[in-house]
């Protein structure tokens, strides 16, 4: 599903963001990705979503080797990945319905099917009543859930979340993680990048820890302990 083989990324100017990172996420697996700021979490997610290209190594997503695909194929690969961001990345001039419907409209679903799926996705994140609202009318947690609804509306096999609970209180953070668990139960692979060590400790999932571009731990560990180790 997700396969990294000795992936390195060096930015122009020589900054080494990732060094020989290898791991794989199996279909239906849920994992956390953690590390300090600058550890390489965002770079790793950018590589998966093809916002960046690796300097070395190979990345395979849903069976496609990313190094070999052409520019025109990138959108089709991205459709197989649901992406969730800390800042939600919603279109502010469109309603909740239109935001969530966007991936379906892009893929050419019929109006009827789009409506059905959007309503189902919003129901899943408990936002059915906010269909006609604009993002600025929603709280941070609600906006995040709209982002999640948009990410799962076309039923991608992979969900990537970059600090999805970054601006939320602990209660809302847990609600969001519970949502990811529900999708994971349905067979979706989920990778959540976060530096919320408390959250990781509570969830007891496999955790990949990055430090200065290196993968230093990979496994189900005590989140607090791993974080403490990582921090030092």
């Amino acid at each position, binding site marked *: 599903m997700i396969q990294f083989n000795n992936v390195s990324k060096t930015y122009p100017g020589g900054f080494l963001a990732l060094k020989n990172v290898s791991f794989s996420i199996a279909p239906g697996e849920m994992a956390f990705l953690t590390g300090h700021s600058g550890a390489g979490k965002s770079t790793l997610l950018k590589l998966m*979503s093809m916002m960046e290209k690796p300097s070395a190594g190979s990345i395979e997503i849903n069976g*496609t080797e990313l190094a070999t695909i052409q520019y*025109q194929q990138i959108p089709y*690969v991205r459709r197989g990945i649901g*992406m969730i961001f800390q800042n939600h990345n919603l279109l502010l001039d469109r309603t909740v319905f239109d935001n969530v419907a966007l*991936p379906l409209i892009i*893929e*050419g679903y019929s109006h009827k099917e789009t409506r059905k799926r959007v309503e189902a996705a919003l129901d899943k994140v408990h936002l059915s009543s906010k269909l006609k609202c604009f993002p600025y009318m929603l709280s941070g947690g609600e906006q995040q859930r709209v982002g999640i609804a948009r990410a799962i509306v076309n039923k991608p096999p992979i969900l990537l979340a970059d600090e999805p609970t970054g601006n939320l209180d602990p209660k809302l953070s847990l609600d969001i993680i519970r949502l990811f668990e529900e999708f994971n139960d349905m067979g979706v692979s989920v990778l959540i990048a976060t530096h919320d060590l408390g959250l990781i400790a509570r969830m007891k999932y496999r955790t990949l820890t990055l430090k200065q571009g290196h993968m230093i731990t990979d496994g189900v560990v005590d989140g607090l302990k791993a974080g403490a180790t990582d921090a030092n």
Partner: protein
Amino acid sequence: MQTNYSRQSHHQLGWTGRITARVIRHLQQAIGSLGDLWRTPFTSVMTVLVLGISLTLPATLHLFVKNTEAVTQQWQSASEITLFLKLSTSEQAAQNLVQRIALYPEVENVVYISAQQALAEFKVNSGFGQALEYLTQNPLPATILVTPNQRFSQTQAAHELLLKLEQERNVEQGKLDLEWLTRLEAMAALIEDVVIAIAVLLCLSVVLIIGNTIRLAILNQKDAIAVMKLVGATDSFIQRPFLYAGVWYGVLGGFVASLCVAILANYLSGALRQLTDLYQSQFTLAGLSLAEMLLLQLTAIALGLLGSYISVRQHIRAIEPTAD
């Protein structure tokens, strides 16, 4: 297992359903782009006016050339070849020549003026009637006025006919006074070239103006474009509304240009009528025909589309999503 992502789609529509969905999506994007223009009225109106006025100038100059050609056509059609016969030509030989020339396929009409008729006319018109009484013999030759048909009334063809007629045995000299017409034609051709040059420059400016307007629209929606790319939108999906915006600019600009040309033609035809009345001329200013208006409209649309296409090709690909 390798997954083929090209044209991958998760929905279960048949090909007719897919075509219908595609058509509906195009319509939605076309109407949506019109809505975008509506939401930025000042920019849209200014762009449409610039496009319309830019196209009005070459279209008006085209009208000028077209009407000039119509005028010269009228004069050319009225052109005649005058054949002066040798003084020694007998009346019978002259009549034979007239009959022979009348059979030329290039000739529309032949009028014979005998030497006596010519002298009589000269007496009446010249005012030397009394003086001419003293001449012992008629100094004027018999004359044949040849009117070429429509096809041979053009300068070059008329010249060729003149040369042919001058080969006739009894013809002393032929005359085709078309030099002034040649000059006029040369001027009209020059004006036509100037019109083409101005039209090309104005069309280029229209493309640049539309391109710049679309560029600004793309930059305004940079964040939205980045989000669309993140959720799997292709460049063609993203660029479509901008291309439709270019088409709308063309449609509206073309309409403005047609309207401006019609108003200008109407305004000028009044002044022209006063002028032509002074010369007892029947000339009326021709406006744009339906085909020409359609061509103007299509040109405007093509320019709008070209401007927006150049802009989207250059700018949409450059926008890449960021995780920030």
